């Protein structure tokens, strides 16, 4: 730590200590009834769908076998030709890169993409790390197989959700993040990018995707 003006020592002195405290203090307990909004593991997909829809996310439950057709149809309907995907066991297992190519789309996975080329994509199709039912939030821990720009710069983001992705509450998400590791970057996505800066008019699609779609696999 670079501290030429001894700010840290000044903090300690301001608190009446002669040196920086080294014994860990005990932070307040977080009473579950106060903090937790979702108390059950049942109906998480339905709750997620309800909340995410309120945030202008498009949510559609989907059987695995019908996904390739539905997805290709959705992308074409939104004029998306150049498609990026993260390198994903789930997406590969579903045969998605190939089925979308067969449907005439230009599909590249993250190993064939760069930050700069991501800017030229029309849409990203990705899996997610978690999905929070309480808030209808997609959570992605980015890594070598899943670029940060993938779900940020294209105008359409399609997320494929599995039952195992769901956590009930933000509290559960934070516990999972500590347990599984945060990595260098985790992003929580709760709908399409928006602003209300001009006379409080809500405008969808500022710097992030204009359309966020979630297929929930059963």
């Amino acid at each position, binding site marked *: 730590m670079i501290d030429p*003006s001894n700010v840290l020592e000044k903090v300690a002195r301001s608190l009446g200590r002669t040196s920086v405290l080294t014994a860990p203090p005990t932070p307040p307990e977080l009473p579950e009834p106060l903090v937790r*909004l979702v108390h059950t593991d049942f109906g998480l997909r339905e709750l997620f769908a309800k909340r995410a829809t309120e945030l202008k996310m498009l949510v559609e439950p989907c059987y695995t076998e019908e996904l390739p057709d539905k997805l290709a149809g959705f992308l074409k309907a939104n004029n998306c030709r150049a498609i990026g995907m993260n390198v994903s066991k789930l997406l590969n297992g579903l045969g998605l890169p190939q089925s979308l190519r067969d449907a005439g789309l230009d599909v590249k996975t993250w190993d064939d993409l760069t930050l700069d080329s991501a800017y030229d994509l029309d849409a990203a199709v990705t899996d997610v790390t978690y999905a929070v039912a309480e808030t209808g939030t997609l959570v992605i821990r980015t890594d070598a197989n899943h670029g*940060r720009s993938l779900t940020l710069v294209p105008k359409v983001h399609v997320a494929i959700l599995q039952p195992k992705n769901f956590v009930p509450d933000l509290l559960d998400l934070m516990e999972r993040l500590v347990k599984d590791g945060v990595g260098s970057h985790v992003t929580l996505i*709760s709908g399409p990018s928006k602003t209300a800066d001009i006379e409080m008019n809500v*405008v969808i699609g500022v*710097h992030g995707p204009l359309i966020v779609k979630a297929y929930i696999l059963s």
Partner: protein
Amino acid sequence: MATLSLPVAGDQNTNAFLHEAAAAKFDFHSVSVKAAGDEQLKLAVGGAVTRQDASRKMRMLDLPDPDAIRQLAGDIKQHTLDHLDYYLHQLGTNVEKNGGVVHFAKDGAEAKRIILDIATQEDTKRCIKSKSMVSEEIELAHALELAGLDVVETDLGEFIVQISHDKPSHLVQPIVHKDRKSIAKLFAEYFNTPYNDDPQALCQQARLFLRDKFRTSDLGITGGNFLVAETGHVVGVENEGNQRQSVTTPRVMIALVGIEKVIPRMTDLAVMIKLLARSATGQPITIYTNIYGGPRDKGEKDGPEVFHLILMDNGRTEILASEEYRETLRCIRCGACLNACPIYRSIGGHAYGSVYPGPIGALITPLMQGLGEFKDLPHASSLCGACYEACPVKINIPKHLINLRRDIVERKINHPIERFIYRAWAKSLKSPLLYKLNTKLQKLVLRSQAEEHGGWVTKLPSIASGWTTIRDMPQPAAKTFHELWKDR
């Protein structure tokens, strides 16, 4: 290095306020009187923040016990402040474990120097900056521009502030004082395109312009809403996606954050997130919550190669040292107290003469910058308590404003004439004879004055004239209480 050329534009009203606010001696009275007389400003700001306040109140009802969770959030922040040395050290150690570089800066000048050194050392050409109050506090963008760096504010509101040479007037909605017509006019001039005041079209225009800036940027600067000591991460919330850009595209990243932003654990973040967006904009959660720390991991193809965290003091340790005022550092900059405040609704943010306006600004501006110049701000409150009721971390703002008023008296910062009048008043209240004389005299002088001005005392004589420059008094009753009592 190329410098951004920015056209001179902006509404004249705003610029006039700013000019006065920036004058060597800040005069809250004249600036606020002017602001309160601006009906358009009152309509725009008052209307917008009143709606925002209503949606906050509705959204808080999602929570099982809104009052108790506010108390909990306040307790978490207070605990962290009481042990801030421990948590800052823990945070710094963990950021370094994540591969980041940690700097402490004692003030704005030191923070700016660190940033310029990094920009020079890394030879960066284009900086994209996301919205951050702490950078407004030290006028960072301006300083970097002066040093020859190409700096682009990327939050839509802040971008508009930048190209109109304005200042933000709200913690969360920087351009709440601007109407769409003035923004449309500004864009037409800046981009040299036909006038169009459709918000959708204006956003599209900014999106396209800024997208190119993002793509070619090599330095990203963000603030931070929270710092998680346990894991060494910065947390930022936003709706637009421009902050995500700052942590995605540039190869060099700097987070500049106040030392008071630390929370102990990741689970504390759940409490804070649940309260922050609800209090700020009436949303259950912002569109994006970004949790980041350190440079990109091995194999990652985007995200920064170099990550710096600057922890800035700039007057915070002085507040920390006061057990009485320490709790004001709990503030999470949600702006709920501004939206709830009848004074802010009438005069807007610029009149406070500080980047931190509203009730919390009236409190922390004098604490951070000294009571001398800002001695009027603690009086910019009706003490109605709406701010305390709105605060998600339960800072007792009215109590502290009264304490500051006490400090003004104790430290003899108020005007000598004011002190003389109060001393004389106290004397007259202690003596029945003087009291009777005083009330008789007041009645005599003020009643006749009020009769000439439609039943209101609008101008007190000589030394007391300051009192009536910003308020009228009703006509005193025909009979004093003593007289009424006698006649009963």
